[in-house]
């Protein structure tokens, strides 16, 4: 009797996932032409999950409270449609959720693990850093858990306080062996999430909870994927490059619009994938504009903006006309009533754009 692993391994190889490192063909990564249904972020995520579970019978979705639809309703209808053995609640234990997911993925399955809030991902940090990210490397590619995708809502929501508002992406960006992806909108989220699920590496996917209901967009109804590690210039400009991700981009967009009224032309870039990040696109933009501003909700010290700043200075030192600006959360725990002061607001960004341009 053939060994179970061998059988599973060949099945996985036919799917081209998890046992292989090669990238899916470029032609798959195309945003469908116009059209789609008006959807908010949580509905777009829900669509992506439906498609993921439909297209691969060996995919599983699990986490706390996902069965009834999840606390943000992102997983509605999935348990009914795909059954309780593929979509199920887990005990309240993040290290167990992620560890369990690693085991499932190691057997060639797609494991979509939900962490209820990014604020609660830390018990799973050991599993992510010491198991998931090193699974393939330490085994000399004999094993891998590439089928693992961890989803977690992150970021400010207006009233979340310390433990429902965190942006922990920087911790994960420091871990070679995983990818970190953050969508800015419903249409982006669906395509990016499907790419993450199908990517042959473990991925942490942070969903901006503020946008779950707030953001509404035309989302194509079909199966589509967006490429990882490709940043997108969503607004062209010539005076300053402005880089961000997730919910913060809509704030930055407002700041760019405000700057335009004052005659400053901003080039706005959505990084989308934080590791491995698209240095080339950002560098090309900074070579054009000579100025860089990065904005993120996470506290400024040690935030991912620091990595972008250092890398771009390395590459573009002589081109830069001004220091790289970072407009980020303050170095405090995320406060409740003081949230409006903590946040990198449109005005803070606008002031910094002007200061940088007038340096």
């Amino acid at each position, binding site marked *: 009797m053939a060994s179970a692993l061998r059988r599973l391994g060949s099945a996985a190889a036919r799917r081209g996932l998890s046992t292989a490192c090669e990238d899916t063909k470029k032609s798959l990564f195309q945003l469908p032409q116009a059209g789609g249904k008006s959807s908010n972020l949580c509905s777009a995520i829900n669509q992506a999950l439906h498609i993921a579970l439909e297209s691969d019978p060996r995919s599983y979705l699990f986490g706390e409270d996902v069965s009834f639809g999840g606390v943000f309703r992102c997983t509605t209808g999935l348990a009914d449609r795909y059954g309780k053995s593929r979509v199920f609640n887990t005990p309240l*234990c993040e290290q167990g959720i*992620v560890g369990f997911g690693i085991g499932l993925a190691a*057997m060639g399955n797609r494991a979509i693990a939900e962490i209820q809030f990014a604020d609660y991902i830390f018990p799973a940090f050991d599993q992510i850093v010491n198991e998931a990210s090193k699974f393939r490397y330490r085994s000399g590619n004999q094993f891998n858990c590439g089928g693992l995708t961890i989803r977690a809502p992150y970021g400010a929501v207006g009233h979340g306080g310390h433990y429902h508002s965190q942006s922990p992406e920087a911790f994960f960006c420091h871990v070679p062996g995983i990818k970190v992806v953050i969508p800015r909108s419903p249409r982006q989220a669906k395509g990016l999430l499907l790419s993450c699920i199908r990517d042959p590496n473990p991925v942490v996917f942070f969903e901006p909870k503020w946008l779950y209901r707030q953001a509404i967009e035309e989302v194509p109804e079909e199966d589509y994927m967006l490429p990882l590690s490709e940043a997108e210039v969503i607004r062209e400009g010539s005076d300053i490059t402005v880089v961000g991700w997730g919910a913060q981009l809509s704030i930055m967009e407002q700041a760019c619009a405000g700057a335009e009224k004052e005659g400053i032309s901003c080039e706005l870039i959505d990084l989308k994938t934080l590791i491995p990040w698209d240095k080339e696109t950002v560098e090309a933009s900074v070579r054009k504009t000579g100025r860089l501003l990065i904005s993120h909700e996470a506290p400024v010290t040690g935030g991912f903006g620091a990595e972008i700043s250092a890398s771009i200075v390395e590459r573009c030192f002589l081109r830069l006309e001004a220091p790289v600006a970072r407009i980020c959360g303050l170095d405090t725990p995320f406060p409740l009533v003081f949230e409006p002061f903590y946040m990198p607001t449109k005005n803070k960004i606008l002031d910094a754009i002007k200061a940088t341009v007038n340096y």
Partner: protein
Amino acid sequence: MYTGMVTLQVLDTVFYEAQRQGRISFYVTTIGEEAINIASAAALTMDDLVFPQYREPGVLLWRGFTLQEFANQCFGNKADYGKGRQMPIHYGSNKLNYFTVSSTIATQLPPAVGAAYSLKMDKQDACAVTYFGDGGSSEGDFHAALNFAAVMEAPVIFICRNNGWAISTPTSDQFRSDGVAIRGQAYGVKSIRVDGNDALAMYNTVRAAREMAIGEQKPVLIEAMTYRVGHHSTSDDSTKYRPANEIEWWRMQKDPVNRLRKWIERNGWWSSEAESELRIDVRKQQEKLLRETIERHPRDYPEDVPL
């Protein structure tokens, strides 16, 4: 089983001495736990997935990992499957269904449950088996894994090598529960305590556990009582925290290899001639192999250590 246990002992001796001579950087012996290693492996099939801690090379040996393959990983040479990325004894073999060792304690337990769930969903006639020590049972991952295994009804066997020591920490400083078996019960997992130095008991227990795990699609916890006769690793001198006569007592009076030998000798299947022949044979083989490995990969060998 017996030759397996003896081979493991000789392998341990040769590699331990190699480390002391500076040939490899690090080593972890399995002295005193040969029965747990070999007998549990013998009770499993090749389709069962093994998630080891780091004191279970005997399971890999039983499955067919060659002395050469062990040496390659310890030397971190070009032939190492792990590509020289990890310290010695961090073996892994996908063809033998033995997941690569990671130094972190008990982190292998939750993935073992996930893998077992996969076997269950694919309706495989196999289970996942995961090993850990008494120290590992204090880690959060132990609780996460047992609880998940019970709720998910995953066919996984948890084997705790309760060897009395977590480096220098005796079990009295590790927990105040009645050992580890009772914790399995608390999570709703069928648990059993067994004499880990009795190869036959170990074999039968794992055999029965496997039937239960696969037949009922439920987890099982086995607490195998034993003693860590060797030091924690080559970076440890256990006489600093436990009396030498305690170690000697366990080595001489309770050695699992001796115990099995006496039984097979009494049954007329073994003799002292066969014994010395086996030991000399394996030892010679190992030493020759080490020399050849070094000669074949001279650049993966420390420059300042004479052959």
